[in-house]
């Protein structure tokens, strides 16, 4: 370590001495001549930088574009518009980028100081200035129109038949709640929260909370069916970041937010498409939330309708975790996940007609 520092310092001292020496040399050679010479070098470097820079931009793209998500396209229907808008924006900003950087470095090289050259005294030109005020304004208006059309489609109301799931962020993980067979999420109040038996603070007095299903870390949604997340937080601001779906929404304590999208591919299909057997739709927390911010991973399992029904059939209402003795299927505490639980409709029907339970 100290060897590295020593070498660096030595390197600096060498550069320093060279620099001081070059100053003396310049004075000896005559300032005018040496200035012209260094000018030529820097002018040349301008062009070199431009060429190497553009090559670098191209090379960087070759290296890293495949590592972005755009190679496989959006995994949500709405996200397709994000990708298409991205291409338009790249086309516009990319061409401006190339044109202006070329002009900048080319002008720097071409118009470097030459003895006896007369400059062109050009303080202003109204036509030119109007041109490059109006053209950017028009181009930007087009981008705004496209962007806002997409924005309003994303932030509009979710379809009525959307699968509704409540997502709650906390330090440091995600809690999901399904509305259950009554299709209503029960009331909750944060002062009821107890990590062991009521992680969301559900109000058990509200009957609609009795069939709500609560899971942690993993949420199941259905391919080709719109999914609406109702998002909140238990403590600080988090954010539900869904890169593959091109979606994102803050989770704010005390202020519910919503986000909806329609997934196009099941997790299995994505594993095949990407050739990565470890592929998973990950929820990344996208708002600084404390020292565990980087560890708040959620998983979205996109499955077919039948796979979803199968999974849902195995889920127990959270009510029975809070009140294990109320669970109808067995008297003992319901931690035994291998036991097949009867589906809700059947339970509620048998509850009405079967006094045994």
């Amino acid at each position, binding site marked *: 370590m100290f060897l590295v520092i020593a070498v660096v310092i030595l390197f600096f001292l060498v550069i320093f001495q060279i620099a001081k020496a070059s100053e003396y040399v310049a004075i000896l050679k005559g300032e005018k001549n040496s200035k012209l010479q260094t000018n030529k070098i820097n002018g040349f470097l301008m062009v070199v930088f431009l060429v190497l820079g553009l090559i670098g931009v191209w090379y960087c793209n070759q290296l890293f574009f495949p590592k972005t998500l755009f190679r496989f396209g959006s995994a949500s229907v709405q996200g397709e518009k994000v990708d298409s808008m991205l291409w338009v924006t790249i086309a516009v900003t990319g061409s401006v980028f190339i044109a202006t950087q070329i002009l900048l470095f080319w002008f720097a090289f071409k118009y470097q100081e030459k003895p006896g050259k007369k400059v062109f005294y050009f303080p202003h030109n109204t036509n030119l200035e109007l041109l490059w005020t109006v053209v*950017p304004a028009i181009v930007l208006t087009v981008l705004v129109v496209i962007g806002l059309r997409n924005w309003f489609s994303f932030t509009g109301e979710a379809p009525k038949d959307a699968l509704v799931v409540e997502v709650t962020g906390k330090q440091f993980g995600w809690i999901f709640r399904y509305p259950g067979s009554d299709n209503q999420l029960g009331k909750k109040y944060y002062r009821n929260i107890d990590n062991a038996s009521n992680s969301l603070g559900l109000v058990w007095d509200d009957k609609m909370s009795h069939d709500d299903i609560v899971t942690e870390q993993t949420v199941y949604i259905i391919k080709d069916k719109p999914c609406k997340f109702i998002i909140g937080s238990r403590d600080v601001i988090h954010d539900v970041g869904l890169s593959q779906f091109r979606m994102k929404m803050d989770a704010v304590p005390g202020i519910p937010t919503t986000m909806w999208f329609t997934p196009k591919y099941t997790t299995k299909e994505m594993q095949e498409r990407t050739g990565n057997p470890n592929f998973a739709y990950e929820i990344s927390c996208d708002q600084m939330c404390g020292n565990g911010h980087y560890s708040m991973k959620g998983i979205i399992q996109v499955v077919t309708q039948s796979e979803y029904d199968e999974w849902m059939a195995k889920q127990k209402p959270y009510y029975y975790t809070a009140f294990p003795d109320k669970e109808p299927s067995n008297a003992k505490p319901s931690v035994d996940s291998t036991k097949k639980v009867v589906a809700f409709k059947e339970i509620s029907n048998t509850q009405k007609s079967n006094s045994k339970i």
Partner: protein
Amino acid sequence: MSSEVALDFHSGVSSLTDSHHAHDAHEHHHHETFISKYVFSMDHKMIAKQFLITGMFWAVLGGLMSVLFRLQLGYPDSTFPWLEDILGKWAKGGHITPEAYYALVTTHGTVLVFFVLTAGLSGTFANFLIPLQVGARDMASPFMNMLSFWFFFIAGVVMLSSIFVETGPFSGGWTAYPPLSALGSASPGSKTGMDLWIISMALFVVSSLLGGLNYIATILNMRTKGMSMTRLPLTIWALFFTAVLGVLSFPVLFSGFILLIFDRNFGTSFYLSDIFVNGAGALPNEGGSAILYQHLFWFLGHPEVYIILLPAMGMVSEILSTNARKPIFGYMAMIGSMFAIAILAFLVWAHHMFVTGLNPFLGSIFVLLTLLIAVPSAIKVFNWLTTLWRGNIRFTPAMLFAIGFVSLFISGGLTGIWLGNSALDIHLHDTYFVIAHFHIVMGVASMFGMFAGIYHWFPKMYGRFLNNTLGYVHFWITITGAYLIFWPMHYEGLAGMPRRYYDYSIWESFKQFGDLNRFISTVAMIVFATQILFLANFFYSIFKGRKLRSLNPWGSNTLEWTTPIKPGHGNWPGEIPEVYRWAYDYGKDGADFISQTTPVGADESVH
């Protein structure tokens, strides 16, 4: 030691009438102690240097912090025993802890945005250039000016002290969103460290306001004879708009902090509602909105980036014009575009909040206004390009940095168009794309503006030149390095890679960038080391740099070059010169340059 013609300077008040000073042309010993000359100075030039050197200190500290956290990002699986030697419990086993990582990124952001790029940039050049370029003997209130530096200094001391408290400095990101920043139970860094952070920021706001009011008053009231507003150099216009932005927006930040102090210490619920913290249980607060803070913060936060950018733009205009030996193209358009940017700066803040769940219609208004701000920015770029066209360019180090500024502003500005479009921002918010964008367009570009200003005006500050060769080395390594560091980050962002993550190894979606992260960290260390080279050049040249032999080494038109090589108190020993023209008559009617103090000839062309 150069002989300084000291003037009879009535403390606190600059006299407008020159006749008062005319009969002071004889040597008048104005008794200065070391303390009154170098410490509690009321001379704007000394205060400028104080801002500059303090800013440099914070730049080194903040830059060092970035090297440390990039060590974690580039080498997440490695341990460095020497780290534990330096950082102690914050690097147990030679590995930076998550607590330390988040404290480093937070302090890096805070220190660089406020202490380096606001105080170090505006503080230095507004103080140095305004009186000299408008033709005044000092600022409107030299006493308030001195106070503005010392409030900045004390703010720095408080921030420095926060690094050494037991629970650590604040670690919730420089944006300090509550509830994280309001609740010590949510993060150790939100305990004492946060209290000190807020105090430091409050003192800093005071410093900025004192400075800003002074700059505005001086520019409006103390211009010399003939210096109408439309003859002012663009540096002054830029600094003027910057000061207005600061005076109007910093108080809102201050109010946001006051509410935060109340929530933290006095049981209020401005930002807090429905909160259950692990370990602390359910909090009693209800009814507050965490989003309120974001509105108050970004109402300053957005103008703040223009406060950082505008002075750099003004100086670049000046330096490009001087070294191309051509007038700046479109002087009135340059003023107009700065004016438009200043107004629009106040109307776009919620583009930082597109994903907070705000009303989509509100979001759409901010999209419109944000993309609108691209128009005056584009105008400025085209004007700079045209300034170079058919010029006779001298590549002084200052000129190189000015050209580099334009390149970086183009790159970073264009990605702003991506982010300003809310539908795209949904995907890119809080990813490395944002980091790439603001580092290029604000961090590096404004830093280049600052370097350009230092190389260009160092001779005026110290009567000596910075070493040219070191300047060229500094420029070429830094611009190459900066692009190598931040350009690839755009791709990481497009992949959705979140910012402010300590480690990516558990993320299937983001762990493919390990090699790139290591590369970026390596380049970052090289670029940081190069800045040390620059600092060595700076301090060495103050004492041993090549001395100036002429009053006006750059052949510049502006007033600061008409003072003696080392201007004393009051800047001009005799009367303040009168101004007859704008600052950009380079190459007019075949003349190389025509100073602002040269009367208009009878046969001169009209432009």
